[in-house]
C-alpha cells in the first residue's frame, strides 16, 4: 500500500430526492489519491445514486462536491469526464460492433475538422492499453468478439483514456469468473500505484478485504460509518450495513424434522458439466450445494428439471422422473419446482403482474374450464405477498416495477403457489438486499418445516452454513458426499471446491 495522502474529492452533506423518496440524505465522503475506497451498503442504500452524482449524471439537491478543495458543479457526464472522473457501470456498457480502439476513445477521438486521425487514435489507444496485458485485446478487434473478462479491461481502458484521477467501479466483478477477478485486483493495485483514487462498490466483503484500503458504509441514504478495512471485522461492517447483528439473519434450524427421501439422484450425467452426481434429499430438510461458478452446480439443477439432456436415474417422490415429452412440464407435475439464477431472463415475466407471475407455473389450479378465476388468483397472490412481505401496491402491479429483492420474493412465491414438493433453488438471494434476504431465508425455512424438500445452490458460504442441514460440494462436474453442515467448515468446503483435496468426502 502506498502512502495515501492527498485529498482528491470531498463530498459534504449530499442530498438527493426523487419525488417523495430520499435516495441520498446526507452523505459525506473523503477520497484520497492512491487509495481504494470501498462503498458498501444494502441494495437501495443509495450507492448507485451516489455514484451517479459523482459521475455527473445526477445533480444533487443539496451539498457540496469539492475537487482538489474547490467546489465544482458536474452537470453532465462529459463535465465529470473532463474533470477526470470516470464511472464503470455494473453492466458492461461497450459498443460490441466497434473495435477496441474505437471503444476506448469514443467521445474524444483525435480528429481534424471532423475527419478521424487514424494514426493518432491508434497510438493513443495503444498507450492506454499498455498498462494491461491481455492476449486477446488488440486495437482492431471487434469488442463483441472478445471474452467478457477482456471486455471488462476494454471498459477500464476507456475509463482511463482521459486524464482520470477518480475511478468509480460499480460491482465490477459481477460478470467475471474467479481467475479474472484476480486479474482485476492486480489492475486495481496498479492504478493505486499510479495515484488514482478508486471507489469500489461490492456486496462481497472478501473482495473488499482483498483490494480496499478504507470503506464508507451507506444505510438509507446516509453515510453511517467507515474506517480502515483491516481494523474492522466482517461482522462489524455488516452490522453497520444492516443496523443489526449478523447472527440474527438466519432463522434457527432447530426442530426441523426430515422424513422420507423425496428426491433421489443416482449417477446423473449431463456432459460436459455434470458427471455422475448422486444425492438423496429428504422432505423437511435443506441440502446445500457449494462450489465455484462453473463447477456444474447450475447444470445439475437444470438437468434435474429436464432443461438439459442427461443420463442416470432420478426419482421424485418414489416414482422415476419422466424421460419423454416436454420434460420441464412433466417433471414439474411430478413435484419439482425450479428457481433460475437469472431472475430477469428466466425467473420472471417482468412485464406481467405479480399475480400472474406467482401463478405462472400453475395457472390450472386457479382456473375453471380454461378461464382463470381472477378473484381466486388475487386471493392466492395476496396471501403470498403477505407471507413473504413483498413490498408492493398490490397483486396487479407489474413485477418489473419492483426492487430486485421484491422481484426475487415473487419468483420464489411462484414455487410455493405451485406447491412443489421439491424446491430447486439456484442462487435464491443473488443481488438481493439484506432485508429481503432475511425474508427469503424465513420463507425457505417455513416451507421446509411444512415438509418441503429444498436443494439450494449458493456462492455465498455463510448463507449455506446458516440455511442448510446438509451440505455437498461440487468441483469440476463431480459432487462430493453429502454431510451434515456441522461436519463442514468454510475451509474444508473451499478445499473441496477448488480441488485442493481429492474429495475426502467419498473416502471417509
Amino acid at each position, binding site marked *: 500500500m502506498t502512502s495515501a495522502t492527498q485529498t482528491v474529492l470531498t463530498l459534504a452533506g449530499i442530498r438527493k430526492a426523487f419525488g417523495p423518496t430520499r435516495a441520498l440524505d446526507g452523505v459525506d465522503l473523503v477520497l484520497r489519491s492512491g487509495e481504494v475506497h470501498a462503498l458498501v451498503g444494502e441494495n437501495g442504500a443509495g450507492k448507485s445514486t451516489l455514484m451517479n452524482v459523482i459521475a455527473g*449524471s445526477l445533480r444533487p439537491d443539496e451539498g457540496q462536491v469539492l475537487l482538489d478543495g474547490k467546489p465544482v458543479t458536474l452537470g*453532465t*457526464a*462529459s463535465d465529470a*469526464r473532463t474533470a477526470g472522473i470516470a*464511472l464503470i*457501470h455494473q453492466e458492461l*456498457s*461497450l*459498443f*460490441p*460492433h*466497434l473495435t477496441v480502439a*474505437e471503444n476506448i476513445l*469514443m*467521445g*474524444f*477521438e483525435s*480528429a481534424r475538422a*471532423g*475527419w*478521424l486521425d*487514424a494514426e493518432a487514435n491508434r497510438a493513443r489507444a495503444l498507450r492506454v492499453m499498455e498498462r494491461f496485458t491481455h492476449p486477446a485485446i488488440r486495437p482492431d478487434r471487434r469488442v463483441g*468478439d472478445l471474452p467478457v473478462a477482456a471486455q471488462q479491461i476494454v471498459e477500464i481502458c*476507456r475509463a482511463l483514456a482521459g486524464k482520470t484521477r477518480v475511478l468509480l467501479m460499480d460491482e465490477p466483478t459481477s460478470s467475471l469468473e474467479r481467475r479474472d477477478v484476480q486479474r482485476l485486483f492486480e489492475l486495481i493495485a496498479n492504478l493505486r500505484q499510479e495515484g488514482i483514487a478508486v471507489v469500489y462498490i461490492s456486496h462481497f466483503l472478501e473482495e473488499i478485504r482483498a483490494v480496499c484500503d478504507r470503506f464508507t458504509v451507506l444505510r438509507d441514504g446516509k453515510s453511517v460509518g467507515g474506517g480502515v478495512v483491516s481494523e474492522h471485522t466482517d461482522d462489524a461492517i455488516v452490522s453497520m450495513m444492516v443496523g443489526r447483528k449478523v447472527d440474527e439473519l438466519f432463522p434457527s434450524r432447530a426442530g426441523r424434522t426430515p422424513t422420507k427421501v423425496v428426491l433421489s439422484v443416482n449417477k446423473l450425467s449431463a456432459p460436459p458439466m455434470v458427471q455422475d452426481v448422486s444425492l438423496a434429499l429428504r422432505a423437511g430438510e435443506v441440502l446445500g450445494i457449494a462450489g465455484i461458478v462453473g463447477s456444474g452446480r447450475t447444470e445439475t439443477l437444470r438437468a434435474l428439471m429436464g432443461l438439459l439432456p442427461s443420463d442416470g436415474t432420478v426419482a421424485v417422490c418414489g416414482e422415476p422422473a419422466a424421460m419423454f415429452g416436454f420434460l420441464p412440464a412433466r417433471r414439474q407435475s411430478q413435484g419439482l419446482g425450479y428457481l433460475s439464477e437469472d431472475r430477469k431472463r428466466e425467473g420472471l415475466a417482468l412485464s406481467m403482474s405479480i399475480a400472474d407471475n406467482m401463478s405462472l407455473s400453475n395457472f390450472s389450479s386457479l382456473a375453471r374450464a380454461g378461464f382463470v378465476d381472477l378473484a381466486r388468483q388475487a386471493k392466492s397472490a395476496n396471501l403470498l405477498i403477505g407471507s413473504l412481505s413483498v413490498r408492493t401496491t398490490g397483486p396487479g402491479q407489474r413485477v418489473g416495477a419492483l426492487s430486485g429483492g421484491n422481484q426475487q420474493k415473487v419468483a420464489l412465491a411462484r414455487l410455493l403457489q405451485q406447491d412443489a414438493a421439491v424446491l430447486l433453488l439456484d442462487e435464491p438471494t443473488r443481488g438481493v438486499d439484506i432485508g429481503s434476504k432475511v425474508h427469503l431465508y424465513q420463507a425457505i425455512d417455513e416451507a421446509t418445516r411444512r415438509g418441503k424438500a429444498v436443494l439450494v445452490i449458493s456462492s455465498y458460504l455463510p448463507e449455506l452454513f446458516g440455511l442448510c442441514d446438509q451440505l455437498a460440494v461440487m468441483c469440476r462436474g463431480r459432487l462430493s458426499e453429502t454431510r451434515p453442515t456441522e461436519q463442514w467448515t468454510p475451509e474444508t468446503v473451499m478445499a473441496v471446491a477448488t480441488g485442493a483435496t481429492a474429495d475426502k468426502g467419498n473416502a471417509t
Partner: protein
Amino acid sequence: MNFRAFVSRFGYVIGLVAVIAIFAVLTGAPERYLSPHNLRVILAQTVTVAISAIGMTMIVVSGGIDLSVGSTIALSGVVTAVGLRDGWPPILAVAMGLVTGAIVGVVNALSITRLKVIPFIATLGMLGAARGAAKWMGDEKTVDIPATWVNEIAVTVPIVPWLMFAPGVWIAAVLAVVTTVVLRRTVFGRHLFAVGSNESAARSCGISPERMKMWIYGIAGVFFGLSGVAQMSRLRQGDPTVAVGTELDVIAAVVIGGASLSGGEGSIGGAMVGALIMAFLRNGSQQMGWPTYVQETMIGVIIVLAVAVDRLRARARAQG
C-alpha cells in the same frame, strides 16, 4: 485474407454474381441479358431504391427504421414538380424537393426523441401523413412539368453519350462512396455506429443520441428527397400515388447487404449490392417471361435466406 474471411465479408457480392450468372444462363442469351442497353435499364430502374438505401443504411445502423420512405419520395417529387410547373428555376425546385425530404426526416426525429415514440411507429405515422401531404400538394392529381434538364436525371439513355449511364446512376454511385467514407472516417460516422451499437453507453461517453438522430434522420431525408426527384424525373410528372411500398424494397436492400435491424452493423456497399440483386432478379424474371408472382416469391425467399446466412456467419464467428 483467407477464403472463409473473404466469403463472410463479401458474401452478398457472391450472391449478386450468382444471380447474374444464373439468369445469363437461364435466358440462354447472356449477350442480351448483359447488353449495355439492358444494364442501362436495370441501373436506371435501381436509382430510386439505391439512393434511398444510402439514407436507410444510416438510419438502420443507428438502431432506427424509417417506414415513411415511399411517401417521402412521393411528397418530394410532387413538391419539385409543383415548383417546375410554376416556373421556378429548376435548381430551386430540386432544392425544395431535397429540403422537403429533410423536413420530413427532422419531424420523424422529433417524434422519436421528444415524444419518445419508437421509430417504427413514428415513421408509420409519417407514412400516412406524408402521403396525405403529397396528395394535398398535387390536388389529388398528377402534376405535369415543362421540359427541363431535370427530366434527364434518370433517363435510360443519357443525352450526353460519354456518360454511358443515366446521370442519376452516377449521382447514386458518388453519394454511396462519399457516405461510406463519411461513416468510416469521420467522428460523425463513428458516433452514428456507436449510437446504434449501445445508445446508453454513447450517452455516457458524452455523445447525445438525440442530437445524432436529428442529423441522421435529417440527412437520410435529403437522400429520400433526392430519390423523389429522380422518381419524378423518370416519370416526367409529379405523382402523389407513386412509390407505395418502396420503403420495403429499400429496407430489403439494406438487410440483404448485411445490416442488422438491431443496429450497429451494416454497410452502404452491401445495401447497393442488395438493391442490385433485387433489380437483376426482377429484370431477369421479366426476360424469362415469368409472371410477377414468381419474382415476388423469389425476392421474399432471398431476403430471408440472406439474413439466415448472415446469422449463421455471426454464430460461426462467435464460436471461432
